[in-house]
């Protein structure tokens, strides 16, 4: 009997890590130009951002369906495995609802569902943590309990080029305070208690990158770390280089905001996900 980890595509986990830890990823849906596509399956990031920047109607996203979850849970539990299913914050998406309904309809006892209160690679790091805990053994409840206890060690900071997409997508939330078009600022947001919260407003990209690094350093020491970009891999490389004081470069995961996150975070965004050392 194995504990298997399930997540959704908003975790933006790189494919090799998904494979390595045998993680099951349910694709979210993204609606671009009237087409409903599975994030990371029917549409890849390059294509998505090209279409996003081409203008056109604002893309929207949709959570995996109850049927999607049922199929995955059924598949895993029918093999005798137990499931820890970890998802994007319930304040940002209805994904957890789909998962809960699927769990309620079948094999409920073998599935533990966790609200990560995060999104993107910060969620991805929780998933990696869960995979490591599962490998150590124990029941799905024990794994889930440990994951929940460690949730506050995971953090995400994002430097956006614009809040336009977050606002258009209806996910502006607490970052509302940083809206404003008179001055061209590069807002830094932080995931906290399940939502994006405003942190500060550097005046250009260079300073945003610099501040992002400083803010991350304040959160050290770190156990795991990922750098994330939407359309500028070169800037991400600079960001990674700046952070090598916290972790050696070969241990820093490189990731990309997929179509689901990209819908809200927009082009030219950078992010850092970390798991702090337990105190």
């Amino acid at each position, binding site marked *: 009997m194995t504990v298997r980890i399930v997540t959704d595509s908003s975790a933006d986990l790189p494919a090799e890590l998904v494979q390595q830890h045998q993680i099951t990823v349910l694709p979210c849906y993204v609606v671009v130009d009237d087409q409903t596509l599975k994030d990371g399956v029917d549409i890849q990031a390059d294509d998505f951002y090209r279409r996003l920047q081409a203008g056109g109607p604002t893309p929207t996203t949709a959570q995996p369906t109850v049927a999607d979850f049922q199929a995955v849970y059924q598949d895993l539990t029918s093999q005798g495995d137990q499931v820890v299913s970890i998802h994007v914050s319930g304040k940002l998406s209805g994904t957890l609802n789909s998962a809960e309904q699927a769990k309620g309809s079948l094999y409920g006892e073998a599935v533990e569902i966790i609200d990560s209160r995060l999104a993107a690679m910060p969620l991805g790091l929780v998933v990696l943590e869960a995979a490591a805990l599962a490998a150590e053994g124990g029941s799905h409840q024990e794994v889930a309990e440990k994951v929940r206890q460690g949730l506050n060690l995971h953090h995400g900071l994002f430097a956006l080029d614009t809040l336009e997409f977050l606002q258009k997508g209806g996910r502006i939330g607490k970052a*509302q*305070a*940083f*809206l404003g078009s008179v001055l061209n600022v590069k807002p830094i947001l932080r995931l906290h208690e399940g939502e994006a919260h405003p942190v*500060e407003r550097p*005046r250009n990209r260079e300073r945003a990158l610099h501040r992002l690094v400083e803010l991350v350093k304040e959160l050290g020491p770190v156990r795991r770390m990922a750098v994330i970009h939407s359309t500028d891999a070169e800037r991400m490389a600079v960001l990674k280089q700046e952070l090598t004081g916290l972790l050696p470069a070969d241990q820093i995961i490189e990731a990309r905001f997929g179509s689901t996150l990209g819908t809200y975070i927009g082009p030219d965004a950078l992010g850092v996900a970390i798991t702090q050392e337990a105190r």
Partner: protein
Amino acid sequence: MIYNCSDLDDGPLASLYLIAPATDSTIRDGNGLSMDQLRGQDLQAAFSAATSCLEEYRDAVNALNVFPVPDGDTGTNMLLTMRSAVQSAADACPDGEDHSVAAVSAALAQGAFFGARGNSGVILSQFFKGFSDALTGKEYLAAPDLARALMLATKGAYSSVGNPVEGTMLTVIRMASEAVQGVDDGLLDLWGTAYQASQDALSNTPEQLPVLREAGVVDAGGFGVVILIGGALRAISGTASPSIDLSELGRFQGAANNGSGPIDSGYLDSTMEEEWGNCTQFIISSVDGLELDLEQVRKHFQETALSTVVVGDERSVRVHIHVEDTAPALSYAVSLGAVSDVKIENMDWQNERFAASGHGGVKQAAALALLPVVQGDGLAHLFRDSGCAGVIEGGQTMNPSVQQIIDAARSTGAKDVIVLPNNSNVVLAAEQAAGSEPFLHVVPTKSVPQGVAAMFAFNPEGLWQENVESMSAAISEIASVEVTAAVRGVKIGGVEVKEGQYIGLLEGKIVTAEDNVQGALRTALDLTGLSSDAIVSIYYGAGCPLSDAQSVAATLESDHPGIQVDLIDGGQPHHQFLASVE
């Protein structure tokens, strides 16, 4: 509330007044006021006359600007502060009745406190606070009381500024006070001595402050103090002493200032009560000998209304509140006694403006709000657009009063409010407001660029303490540049300025005077030591074409590759350009 009349009944000096002097011991000659001691109404009349006198000399005081820029006018600020003081005294101590000097001076102090505008107004308000403290419990003002009152007034004035500078109105106040300490003389003579000493002190201010000497003027605030002491003296002495001739004040009028006309005081008056709901005032009088419980009344209105000011005693209580619905307030008042002098003014236009600004007015109050003082549509839009809860209109030549700052802060509905004064002449008033209201905090921004820098460091979700710290740090990281037209010629800090030239100021100091507005901006910006990763923000003012700003931006960008120049329509009235370098 900091001041209230009930405190006067049990002040430390009350025991001295177990045997009150008989009223008829006051000698009146039918021409002037009392010769050896003043009653409350005499003191009130004296400061009322002093205020009229200041009104007469307002433009002359305004003209003593050290910097040849359209400035927060000292004469106007002092006058508006005095008007508020005198009005408060008139409200608390109606004509035709006898009043103690304790009651009158306390009312003067309270009015000055809330009406204080600009740094000179704040200093003046603390002068009255000290003056009033000295008269606590006093029925009459006799000669020895004057010395003590001026001593405490001086102390109050000095304590109101963090870093007292000699050669300013502080010195004039202090010298007037020192001249009467320990002098055994009649009241009128003492007042005359103080007046003479104040003039001497004022004449000497250019010797103490090189900046005054260079500009060829005496200190404006000091001149205001001389006028007030002189005006009061003239009223006290009446026609009995025709030797009090204020025309000698003419000698203090320095270089003529034709450039800065008086501000529109009607505008200031109309913005005094910016708030939502109804500004409601009334007086409750006791009936059938039932004593009023002042503390209870105050507590009631502090809990049920905003901008609560409750003063009075067990016989009569004056209430000033801001409420959405006046009926419950009045019902409560009627249950206590006879209600009179009811005044209700609707202030809802303010709330409409808040709602129109897209921030939902008082209904979506944040825990922590940011409230800048700004002038100009563009700047107001910039601050609102960037998440400020609203703006207090004012700044250069239009300094908001302490009460306006408090009212605007309250109208945000936020639990804590951080005010950005954005002008060196508004900082003290904002700090005075913060001193009286624990929910109000100040990041002492001295210019709009500093205010913008502070705003971008603002985290609406942080604690106010953290924000004050990070925002204060942010203002030290930018250089602040202003360009304005000189309203008169002057030589200052080694820079020769001709009237009509454009002057560039860096951190408030004149660094260049040029015929060309772009040149003045460029020179001042270059003096900040531009590095290739600098961000320059240029706020172009009303009547200053975008093309001027664009051409400066183009030359900056070509001379300093890598630099970022942002142009913002500030629409500010008095500065052709404001700029910051980060």
